């Protein structure tokens, strides 16, 4: 039998009437002073109690009961037509142990979500998105970088032409993703190559200068084509968006969704790709070099040289295990 003390408001004035409410034969009976009426339970709505905060029972015609008796109200909400999802919340809130379990689960979900969930969803989403999305992002990124950190290449046109031709020749013999090769000078990036979403591959003058053999440059471009082939640029953009969504869920600060979306174009290109993506691009490059009959050691050689030059960042900074990563490129290769 549910019985609780409450303040009754008739919805007409702000006057409080001290009453006692009780449940009897499918009705909520409210009695006290001049007040005496009964309401069918299916017309009673209990705002699910939160903590020890005083909660409200809504009766028809904007009438209300306010009571501090959380236990009785919870009982009443079970009998009446009240919101369900919050029963779960109330169960979890009822013991500190459950709440701590919720804390542990939250941490696990966030960690697992960031490590596996976000990349997997990003990959699926990347497959679903049409190619022009990558191209648009790539164009924006290139325009931005041309303004901020890149300047026109100082390499002779003939040299640019020759390198472009060599790669085009290779791509006629084996399958390459659609790409566009550009040469740029950059103090900031030093000896470097970048794959932008949509297939633009930028090679810096310093990288061309560092190469002792054209095949080394072809190997680096092959690695970048691997990034293009697997649409890593778009996936990185989607991943940072997904990570942000998790952040919003945790902080509950939905306002930061807008900050998040504003950050999308910046793409974090300079901070490079994830280690898994590098491995994917490496695997592509290895197969590409083998088909092209270029010794894989060319790739190891030029990367080793970039690595020695401490001032360079970008191609290598996101993967500390360069030595280990280059293992497959130290072998003799499988030229058919």
């Amino acid at each position, binding site marked *: 039998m549910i019985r609780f003390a409450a*303040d009754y*408001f*008739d*919805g*007409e*004035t*702000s*006057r*409080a009437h001290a009453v006692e409410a009780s449940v009897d034969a499918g009705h909520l009976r409210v009695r006290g002073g001049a007040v005496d009426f009964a309401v069918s339970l299916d017309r009673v709505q209990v*705002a*699910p109690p*939160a*903590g*020890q*905060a*005083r*909660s*409200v029972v809504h009766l028809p015609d*904007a*009438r*209300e009961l*306010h009571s501090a008796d959380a236990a009785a109200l919870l009982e009443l909400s079970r009998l009446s037509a009240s*919101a369900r*999802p*919050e029963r*779960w*919340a109330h169960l*979890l*809130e009822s013991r*500190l142990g*459950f*709440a*701590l379990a*919720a*804390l542990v*689960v*939250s941490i696990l*979900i*966030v960690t697992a*979500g960031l490590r596996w969930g976000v990349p997997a969803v990003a990959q699926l989403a990347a497959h679903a998105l049409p190619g022009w*999305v990558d191209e*648009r*992002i790539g164009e*924006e990124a290139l325009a931005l970088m041309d303004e901020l950190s890149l300047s026109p290449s100082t390499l002779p046109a003939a040299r640019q032409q020759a390198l472009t031709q060599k790669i085009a020749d290779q791509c006629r013999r084996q399958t390459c993703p659609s790409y566009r090769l550009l040469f740029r000078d950059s103090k900031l990036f030093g000896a470097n190559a970048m794959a932008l979403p949509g297939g633009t591959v930028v090679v810096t003058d310093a990288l061309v200068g560092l190469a002792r053999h054209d095949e080394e440059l072809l190997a680096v471009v092959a690695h970048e084509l691997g990034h293009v082939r697997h649409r890593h640029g778009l996936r990185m953009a989607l991943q940072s968006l997904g990570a942000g*969504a*998790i952040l*919003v*869920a*945790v902080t*509950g600060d*939905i*306002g930061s*969704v*807008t900050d998040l*979306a*504003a950050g*999308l*174009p910046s793409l974090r290109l300079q901070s490079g790709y994830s280690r898994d993506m590098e491995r994917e691009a490496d695997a592509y490059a290895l197969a590409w070099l083998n088909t092209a009959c270029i010794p894989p050691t060319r790739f190891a050689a030029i990367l080793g040289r970039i690595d020695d030059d401490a001032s360079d960042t970008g191609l290598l900074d996101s993967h500390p295990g360069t030595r280990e990563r280059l293992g497959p490129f130290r072998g003799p290769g499988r030229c058919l």
Partner: protein
Amino acid sequence: MSLTKQYPMQFTGTGREYFVIWIVNIALTLVTFGIYSAWAKVRTLRWFYGHTRLDDQVFSYLATPLQILRGRLIALAAIAAYYATSYFAPRLAIVLMLVFLVLLPWIIVNSLRFHARQSAYRGLRFDFTGSVGEAARIFIGLQLLIPFTLGLILPYVAYRQVRFIAGNTVYGQTGARYEGSHKPFWGVYLLSLGLILLPLAIIAFGAYQVYALRAAGIPPETAAAAAGSYLLAGMAVFYLMIPVIGALIQARTANLLYNGAALGPVGFASRQRARDLIWIYLSNLVLIALTLGLFIPWAKVRLARYRARSLTVNGPHDLGGFVAGQHQSSTATGSEMADLLDLNFGLT
């Protein structure tokens, strides 16, 4: 015997109690891919309202989670459309931006109205009756004048915003009046201006020192080094002043809003102090950082408790004489849009 009675506003919630609600909200939001966030918001507000007590009666928050969810989805779709177009069709995005700007007064009024209508005390709902036209004049018209008047109009804009918000609030059938004048607002902003000039004065003094030392025949490098500390001190004071001024404006504006408002026979006395707010914000920040965010519930409760403690209601011996107004429904779209856009207005 005086005709009025003083009712202190009280906040009775504790950090420990809110911590449990907060962490369960996060967990369920994560498990449901964010859908539960609407329930979480309602539950949180219901808890804060249910612990805010005046004359031994609590406030109640009446919005339903489904209302919030619907508003949130519509607002999210609109913002997503804007960001998608700004990316793939910038010209269309400019058009959308203008549409948003035109809609802004509507969003503001809707947000204030939704918030008011979902808030109740003693069984009577609040309401907000400000017009979209006046919101447009204040939040767009006057705002656009700020650069042309070198910001001199800023105190007046703040005054009009406060008057708009306080003067159009309705409780039951009783409309609030705003009787404050624009004069004290000039004092607040003048003081803020003085505080921001302080670091500039330090830097200017440093520059003058270089000039004076060089005139005295000291080599330029030594003179610059001597003045460098002034520049550094000036910068440090500048960054210190930003939160100080923020807290000052926040506290003084809240006081001016409440102290100038009257609701029928009821008046308010608000006593927020900038130094208290700075201390709360600063210590909250440090503790949140040290506990990797776990202190957030306690931080919010501290702020709620301070805000309640700083407010007293002066009214008749019986607060039961207010009469209900017409019951009207409203949608959460404007309010959720305002949330998403990080717009901040309303009662603090």
